[in-house]
């Protein structure tokens, strides 16, 4: 490969996160030979499958320059609705899944509609709806899990293609490709990025900002609901606390991947790599037997290091271009 090709490669936004990810894999593999065992690869892919959907759910909102604090609450509500409909109403899996996705879409769209209609910041609106959706969750479950998960869902949560690739990764892969296609090839994707880049300019160019905002939030709700349902399949039960831990991850992965919080620039690939980095770091802390009281400190430092390396690379490239 020529020097110019290498330089061009290095300028790609996914290059830095990819290098960090590969380096992390190599380092952990060096210390722990079982790290790349089929079982651990499965474990990693399952974590990636679910966490990627959580990150995408936030990424699409970051793309329009907003934030969604209710990602976890929507995912948790869809998850317990999915499990509850199977246990209490004995609905077929497909119908329960569709209704749960509709719940996710509705919750997301409601966020978008409230933000557009009131002009109140997304932070405030989604903070309020977080409490509402979580409250509905607790009202339904009384804080207790649903155990009546259909056998086919449990099987799906445990099954693997070729004994290596978990079935849970399949929907995520399809959604990732669809999301990439939407953001890079379809007009609506361009509208989303345009609204995030400069809302006023987008409005002047004829884009219906209100529709775009509602649509982005509806997509976010759909993705959160998907993540919640996959988690039900993985855990084999509908825990009311599903989604409680999603907020930090949902921001960390896109930001590590280079997303601009003010909007207008996000990337499916780099977000996916951001998710991979967080998953690798989390695994490394377990594999290397870090003191449980220091885990959060080390996790924070490693995320800072990962972001820092990426930023250094970008600064270096800008300097070279100049």
């Amino acid at each position, binding site marked *: 490969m020529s020097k110019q090709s290498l330089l061009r490669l290095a300028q790609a936004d996914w290059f830095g996160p990819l290098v960090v990810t590969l380096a992390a894999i190599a380092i952990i593999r060096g210390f*722990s030979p*079982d*790290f790349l*065992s089929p*079982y*651990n690869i*499965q*474990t*990693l892919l*399952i*974590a990636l499958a*679910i966490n990627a959907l959580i990150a995408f759910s936030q990424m699409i909102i970051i793309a329009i320059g907003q934030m969604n604090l209710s990602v976890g609450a929507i995912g948790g509500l869809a998850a317990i*609705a999915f499990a*509850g*409909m199977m246990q*209490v*109403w004995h609905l077929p899996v497909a119908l329960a899944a569709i209704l749960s996705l509709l719940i996710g879409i509705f919750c997301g769209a409601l966020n978008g509609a409230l933000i557009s209609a009131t002009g109140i910041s997304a932070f405030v609106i989604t903070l309020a709806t977080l*409490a509402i959706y*979580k*409250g509905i969750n*607790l*009202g*339904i*479950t*009384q*804080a*207790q*899990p*649903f*155990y009546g998960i259909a056998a086919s869902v449990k099987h799906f949560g*445990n099954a693997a293609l070729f004994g290596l690739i978990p079935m849970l990764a399949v929907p995520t892969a399809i959604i990732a490709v669809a999301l990439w296609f939407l953001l890079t090839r379809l007009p609506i994707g361009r509208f989303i990025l345009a609204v995030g880049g400069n809302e006023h300019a987008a409005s002047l160019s004829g884009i219906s900002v209100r529709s775009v905002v509602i649509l982005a939030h509806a997509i976010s709700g759909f993705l959160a609901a998907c993540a919640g349902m996959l*988690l039900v399949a*993985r*855990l*084999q*039960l509908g*825990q*009311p*606390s*599903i989604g*409680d*831990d*999603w907020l930090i991850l949902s921001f960390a992965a896109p930001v590590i991947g280079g997303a601009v919080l003010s909007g207008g620039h996000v990337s499916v690939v780099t977000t996916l790599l951001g998710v991979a980095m967080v*998953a690798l770091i*989390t*695994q490394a802390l*377990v*594999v290397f*037997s870090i003191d*449980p*009281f220091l*885990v*959060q400190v080390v996790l924070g430092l490693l995320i800072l290091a990962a972001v820092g390396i990426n930023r250094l690379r970008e600064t270096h490239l800008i300097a070279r271009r100049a």
Partner: protein
Amino acid sequence: MLRRSMPRVMRALLVAGAFGCAAIGPVYAASDTMVALVPPGPHPYFATWKQGGADAAKAFGLKAADFKVPQQWQLSEQNELLESLLAQGYNGFVIFPGDPVGSVSTVSEMVSNGAPVVTAGGCLKDPSDAAFCLATDTGNSAYLGTKQLIRAMGPGKKRILHLTGFLADPNTQLRIDAVEKAATESGDQVVQVIADIDAPEPAAEKVNAYLAAHANDVDGIISTAWVPSVVAANALRKIGDKRIHMVAIDTDQVVLQAIKDGYVDGTMIQNPYGQAYIGAYAVDKLRSGCQVKADAPFKSNALTKKFIDSGTAFVDAHDVDSYVQTMQDKTKQLLSTFATTYLTCK
């Protein structure tokens, strides 16, 4: 609206037990007693608190004994909920404190407003205005569970993985110390403690990651928190490994089935139903003019000298189906002498 329902058999047993308990306990109460049973956040451990409160209200003639859950496991949310409930007219509280020190001032506020507080499931650090702490002797439970695990693993030096709950939970450090003590006594080694995993996502990620990398490096798993017990039982079932022994905690259906199927050796059961039932009973007594005896035979733990053990027991494949009865017996036993042992009533 969906309605969460307990398995019928379990509910029937609990109700039957409650009537049994009611027959034992003296039945005179302040008819305006409204007890709030408040955990620190949503968690399956508190599944039977609601039933325990409802049964106590019925048995002892309380106006209410309601289960109220903060939306998240956060001290500030619990404190706000407690203050709100006080304003709504609740005049007695059974709480699992969100923090052994951080909750002390809120409890003082409740008590100074005439609402007696009993802590249940977890204790406040002394000094506090809580009447007493009715909870599992968590250290002892973890110690006994580890001893059971060591017995199941057989002779020779063994390596133990310890899965436990929130580091902010006052019980977690007690459990870590107790497991370490039991292992050291028998010459075994705790090779890793994985903590802060009493939630589905981190538990699934970390437990599976550890087993993927180190399954050959451990001989046994002791879990001292609910969610990791569920996740580890599922993980052992998935990898089909019956070489690794495991002792869990609590009575999630996944764990009970894993015990029956031979993937888990047993579980340390606790008595949350009894905590709620007796806690509500005691709060009502305190409102009716009873006082805690100065010379009551309380036990001590790392946090308080006013500790009452609500009961714990090891359940394995032989008696997994009768664990409800085991705990009901403990509840009946405790209640039958509770007033005379711990209270002075006019």
